[in-house]
């Protein structure tokens, strides 16, 4: 049955997280971008919202709420509307928790999820991207080889958020032959394992408040219990669809931030005696932003609804994420353009959103639903 309305619960989550993002996260965004640090007090406050713990089962100390990709997309959008770096930081533990929640063995769920359900912020992360221009989700070069009952994992990862403060990193590696999304495994890797080396914190054009790292894995020896899902392994394609929906939803959040700021600015700022928003050249840019936000969000929600129905939503999530990435860049670019010289000055946030928006098509694996 076609329905464009959220459930009452989803609407409540949207309102709550949205208000929090506006009042608490947004004011912290620029200082965090300049200093590279997110205040610990803010992270703790966001943790109180229970965005990671929420969907974890009561048996491990979670709230036992039903996990839904649509709800996940809403949360990702709202947080990123506040600030993208802070959103990725605060949701990073999901990168470990959700694959294990969904595809882990009972023993893995008990072992890994329990600490993540604790109160306060518990850092955790996943390592997916590799430092190559042509990196793609379907051609990982990090390898996992069987060694009796054990596994040997080797390779180089980059853009791993919170790697330095996470006890556990979920590492994706290619274990066998197979095209596309087959033959990929996820391994639970303690950060202090022999052979795991963290590089210096990465420096990027945007997401400056987000601590990301290169992670080298050299013949890292792991027991069978480290392979997520045990003998069954994982449904990698589905995990990547969830990842795309999450990151795409964050792109919508950034677009909305840029749109609202531009709209309000253009109604205030006068040229030739009238607000620039009364000029069609500016007004049409703003209309285009509004259309693209809704278009991208609907595409992502469609993919999310498919995931909630149990489908892998490969095509839907791929197209939706790429669409959102391209739209976000255009919207943020136009936001800078509409503000003119002021858009280029760091006193206004639009240049930050422009830098952040560039990442959506260049990066992967930084969010999930």
């Amino acid at each position, binding site marked *: *049955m*076609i*329905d*464009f*309305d*959220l*459930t009452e619960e*989803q609407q409540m989550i949207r309102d709550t997280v949205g208000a929090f993002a506006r009042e608490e996260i947004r004011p912290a965004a620029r200082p965090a971008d300049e200093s590279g640090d997110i205040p610990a007090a803010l992270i703790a406050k966001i943790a109180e919202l229970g965005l990671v713990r929420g969907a974890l089962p009561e048996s491990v100390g979670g709230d036992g709420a039903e996990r839904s990709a*649509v709800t996940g997309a809403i949360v990702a959008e709202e947080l990123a509307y506040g600030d993208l770096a802070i959103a990725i930081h605060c949701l990073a533990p999901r990168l470990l928790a959700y694959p294990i929640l969904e595809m882990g063995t009972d023993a893995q769920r008990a072992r890994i999820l329990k600490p993540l359900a604790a109160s306060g912020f518990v850092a955790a992360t996943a390592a997916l991207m590799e430092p190559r*221009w*042509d*990196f*793609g*989700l*379907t*051609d990982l070069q990090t390898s996992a080889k069987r060694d009796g009952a054990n596994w040997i994992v080797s390779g180089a990862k980059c853009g791993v958020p919170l790697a330095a403060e996470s006890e556990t990193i979920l590492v994706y590696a290619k274990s066998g032959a197979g095209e*596309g*999304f087959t033959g990929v495994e996820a391994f639970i890797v303690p950060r202090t394992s022999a052979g795991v080396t963290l590089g210096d914190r990465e420096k990027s054009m945007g997401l400056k408040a987000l601590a990301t790292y290169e992670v080298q894995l050299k013949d890292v020896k792991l027991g069978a219990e480290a392979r997520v899902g045990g003998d069954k392994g994982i449904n990698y*394609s589905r995990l*990547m669809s969830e990842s795309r929906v999450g990151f795409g939803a964050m792109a919508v959040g950034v677009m909305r931030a840029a749109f609202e700021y531009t*709209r309000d600015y*253009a*109604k205030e700022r006068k040229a030739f005696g009238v607000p620039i*928003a*009364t000029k*069609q050249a500016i*007004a*049409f840019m*703003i*209309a*285009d932003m*509004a*259309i693209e936000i*809704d*278009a*991208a969000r*609907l*595409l992502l*929600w*469609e993919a*999310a*609804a498919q995931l909630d129905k149990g489908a892998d939503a*490969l*095509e839907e999530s*791929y*197209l*939706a994420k*790429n*669409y959102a990435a391209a739209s976000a860049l255009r919207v943020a670019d136009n936001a800078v353009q509409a503000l003119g010289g002021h858009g280029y000055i760091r006193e206004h946030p639009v240049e930050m959103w422009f830098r952040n928006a560039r990442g959506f*098509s260049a990066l992967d694996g930084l969010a999930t639903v």
Partner: protein
Amino acid sequence: MIDFELEPQVVERLKMYHMVAENVMRPISREYDEREHEEPEQFFQTMWQAQSLADVAPGGDLKGDLKKDGANAAKPSGPKLRNLLTCATTEELCWGDAGLFLSTPNSGLGGAAVMAAGTSEQKSRFLKRFTEGEPKWGAMAITEAACGSDSAAIQTTATRDGDHWVINGTKIFCTGGQRAVEKSDGFVVVWATVDKSAGRAGIKSFVVERGAPGMQVSRVENKLGIRASDTAMIIFDNCRVPLDHLLGSAEVRKDGGFKDAMATFDATRPIVAAMAIGVGRAALDFIREFLRENHVPVRYGISPRRLSAIERDFMDMEVQLKAARLLTWRAAWMLDTGKRNNLEASMAKAKAGLVVTQITQKAVEILGPLGYSRKLLVEKWMRDAKINDIFEGTQQINMLIVARRVLGYGNKELN
């Protein structure tokens, strides 16, 4: 709960429309593109006899509403998501042929205007004819030589003379106008001002039926595309219609009249967007099949940096079409669920008109000389697609409406 999937029974019903598109429209698609101004009589009869297919008039399941109004109270009054279903069926039929779709005998935009502005009695009086007898058409006449998008500036007048309204003026670009008032016992809904000094509030709509004294179709346009559809110029020279042919109330109120008439667009814009999407999907389906036959892969999920230019183009066509469809369905769904959709209807129309124009152009490009040739229908779809970016409000007018709504401006601040 978010769900954009049609129910199985709706999907089944759409298959019937698709069969009509494929087996009835496609085989004569090229023929009536080449034979502009000729009547596809067999097609008219087929569509008219398949009464349920005539329901796809903008404005939706008219027969359902007539039944509700008392003509046949025993039968169910049509599906709940009427506007959404109309969009879905419109897409199927325009996948077949947008020109033939527009030429389908039904109440058309005239019916939509009657539904939007007419009284219950007027609805059943004027629309009953579409359920009986020979094929008929309904049309709407707004545009004039000196006003297109600026429809509040229309010059056509209606003056009261005893128990008649006397209409004077010339209307152009009236879709289906000739078939409505010259070739069948249909009607055209004419927009005219009853009080120029009142501005927009003075604009009213009038049902003018075939044979009204003083009405004459003076020309039928030659067009870039949708050639199976007639586009008429109609002259009203002291054209007399009875008083009860004015839709709604004759009273000139600031908050009424034009505003009511404009509300018609909230219902018709999603349908025009759906027309565009049907044409776009025709091109997309063709290219998908063409790539498959020529062993050109479309690899979802791989690094976007490894996609070929063709793959990128194809995926962009596909996702733009999906985005337009979701915006369109949302606008229709809002209307069905009683929500105001003025903003969303314009978003859908602006997006769909633009992207389908681009998608069909890209399809010609991908096929190279084959795409440019009239051996295939692709070049025709490109020509047909363009109208959707123009009629029922151009791309720019719809952007203007979206801009006004999101900026909180009226037409004084932003024009």
